[in-house]
C-alpha cells in the first residue's frame, strides 16, 4: 500500500540533511545497492563514490540550499524539481535548476537520476583560476 507521507518525509530528510552537511543521514537515506545517475555523463555512480563526492563538495561550499522544491510522489518513488544555490568558499554564488527522480525501496533511495544543464556550469561553479 502506498504511503506517500513516508516518501515525502524521505525526500525532505535527504535534501535537508544535504543542506546541513549531515552526511551520516544522507548515507542512511540510501539503500545499500543505491546508484545515482547524472545527465552530464549518463553513468550510474556507485553509492560510496557519490557519498565521497558529496563530502568533498561540502568542504568547498560555505552554504547549500535547495530552493523552490516541487515534489510529486509516484508509485515507487518521487520526483523533486528544485534550484540548488551554493555559496562557494571563495564567495561565488552559484545556482542550477535540477530535476531529481528517485526510486525508493523499503524507505530508502535505491536509484536516482539527476538532470541538469552543464551548458550553464559557469552560473554554478566559481571561475577557475588560470595558471600562468
Amino acid at each position, binding site marked *: 500500500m502506498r504511503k506517500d507521507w513516508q516518501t515525502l518525509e524521505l525526500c525532505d530528510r535527504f535534501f535537508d540533511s544535504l543542506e546541513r552537511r549531515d552526511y551520516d543521514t544522507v548515507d542512511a537515506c540510501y539503500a545499500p545497492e543505491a546508484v545515482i545517475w547524472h*545527465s*552530464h555523463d*549518463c553513468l550510474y555512480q556507485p553509492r560510496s563514490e557519490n557519498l565521497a563526492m558529496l563530502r568533498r563538495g561540502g568542504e568547498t561550499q560555505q552554504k547549500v540550499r535547495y530552493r523552490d522544491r*516541487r515534489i*510529486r*510522489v*509516484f*508509485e*515507487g*518513488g518521487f*520526483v523533486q*524539481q528544485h534550484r540548488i544555490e551554493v555559496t562557494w568558499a571563495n564567495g561565488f554564488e552559484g545556482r542550477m*535548476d*535540477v*530535476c531529481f*527522480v528517485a526510486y525508493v525501496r523499503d524507505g530508502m533511495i535505491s536509484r536516482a*537520476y539527476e*538532470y*541538469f*544543464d*552543464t*551548458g*550553464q*556550469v559557469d552560473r554554478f561553479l566559481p571561475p577557475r583560476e588560470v595558471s600562468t
Partner: protein
Amino acid sequence: MTEGEIRELCETFFDAYQDKRVDILERVLADDCVVWHNVFGRETTKRDNLSRYHDSYRGQRRRTYDDRIVNTFHDGFVIQYQLRGVMTNGHKGSLWICIVARVRDGQITRIDEYMDSSKFAAWAGTEEAKP
C-alpha cells in the same frame, strides 16, 4: 484523471511529437499550456511551441522518443527518455531528457523540460573532431 488516462495522455503526446502529428499536439496541449525549458530558463506558450515545431526538425531525418520510463502522480507525470535523432547527413545522436508535466481534463497544462545543452553539438554532429 485516472492513472491510466494520464499515462495514455503522456504516450499520445510523445507519439505525436515523434510522428509529426501537430494536429494531435494541438488537441492534447491545453490552450494555456506553459512550457519551461531549463536550457533557456524561460517559459514559452503552446503557440510558440507549435509554430516552431517544423523548424525544430530542420537538418534532421528522424527523431524517436525511446526507452520511455513514465511515472504518474495525481496531477501529472514524469517521463525519462532517450531522444534519438538521425540527421540528414546520416549522423546519429542521442539526448537524455526528463520532463515533468501537469495535466487537467485530458490535456497537458504545463511542461518542465530538463536537458543538457552541452550535448547539443554531439547530438547534431557539429562537434569538432577531437585530436
